[in-house]
């Protein structure tokens, strides 16, 4: 599914009790869809499409937000949380920590919706779980 098509379909779609708002961004020659689940615009999901896969990324926090001396411990925790966390994995992009999920480009709206809802819930749970490592 193309991203603009996904954007239109998501706006009329509700799944697992969640609603979606999405914004199409295309200012650097790379199409990105910003999806907000249940009005949680603090943790938007960014969806990009490559030839092989659809990537859903949610940025969690920057490196600078980690409490001093807690980097290693946090990284260790994230690696341990990686497997139990359904469908998503932790990642680092530039200086930002993120969680992401990857899907086949042949995924259906239902599959994409499920991924986005799960990623959104995971991102909130993950922040909650590791907030002790973060500064205000």
């Amino acid at each position, binding site marked *: 599914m193309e991203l603009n098509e996904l954007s239109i379909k998501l706006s009329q779609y509700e799944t697992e009790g969640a609603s979606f708002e999405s914004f199409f961004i295309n200012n*650097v020659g790379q199409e*990105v869809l910003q999806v907000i689940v249940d009005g949680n615009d603090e943790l938007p999901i960014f969806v990009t499409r490559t030839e092989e896969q659809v990537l859903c*990324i949610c940025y*969690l926090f920057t490196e600078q937000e980690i409490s001093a001396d807690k980097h290693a411990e946090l990284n260790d925790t994230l690696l341990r949380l990686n497997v139990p966390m359904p469908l998503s994995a932790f990642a680092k992009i530039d200086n930002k920590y993120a969680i992401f999920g990857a899907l086949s480009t042949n995924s259906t709206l239902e599959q994409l919706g499920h991924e986005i809802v799960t990623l959104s819930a995971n991102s909130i749970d993950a*922040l909650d779980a590791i907030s002790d490592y973060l500064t205000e």
Partner: protein
Amino acid sequence: MSILKKLFTAVKGGVNEVGEGIVDANAIRIFEQEIRDAQDALSEAKRSLTEVMAKEIQTSRAIKALEDDIAKHETYATQALDKDEESLALEIAGKIAELEQEKSEQQQILNTFSANVAKLKEQIKQAEKTIVENQRQLSMVKTTESVQKATMAVNDTMTSGDSAMASAKQSLERIKQRQMDRQDQLDAAQQLADESNDKSLHDKMREAGIGEDASKGADVLARIRAKQNK
């Protein structure tokens, strides 16, 4: 060096700055061209393989025909010997020797074809493996590139939006607050619904003259009279 290792080195070395490509676009184009060349070579090899395999089958068939011919002439020779036609038998034997010579030549050709087929199959397998491997690596490079570009797009959006300034902790607090608000709203709505259910039940009970609210004007008057009479 594998692409993943290159990416790793690049990330370690801090090359992964926004806007700076890990693998330059030209390298990607060259890589794509290499994959296309390998695919062309592969289809060429496959075409050769079918040709050689066809020749292999033809030669096998020719050998089979020669074997049949040899067997047939052996029967003729036996028959000639049975009839004491010594010189004819010798002539037939000569023919058999000729056929066998031809068969051994064909056998050599067949061996060459079979060896060629095995070699081509191995080459095709190798080429297919290389192509799949290169495509996988190319996909890594392209994904990295897309994510980089997407990050740039996202950064542009975030710095212009209000979510830019909030720390993760503040964001989490806001989300939790929103979730709590929503839960409170749901609870309130539920409470309201419950109350109105209660109310309609009371209404029905009153109509039926059941329950505490069932007192009617007549009863009240009777009570007041009773007080007066005291």
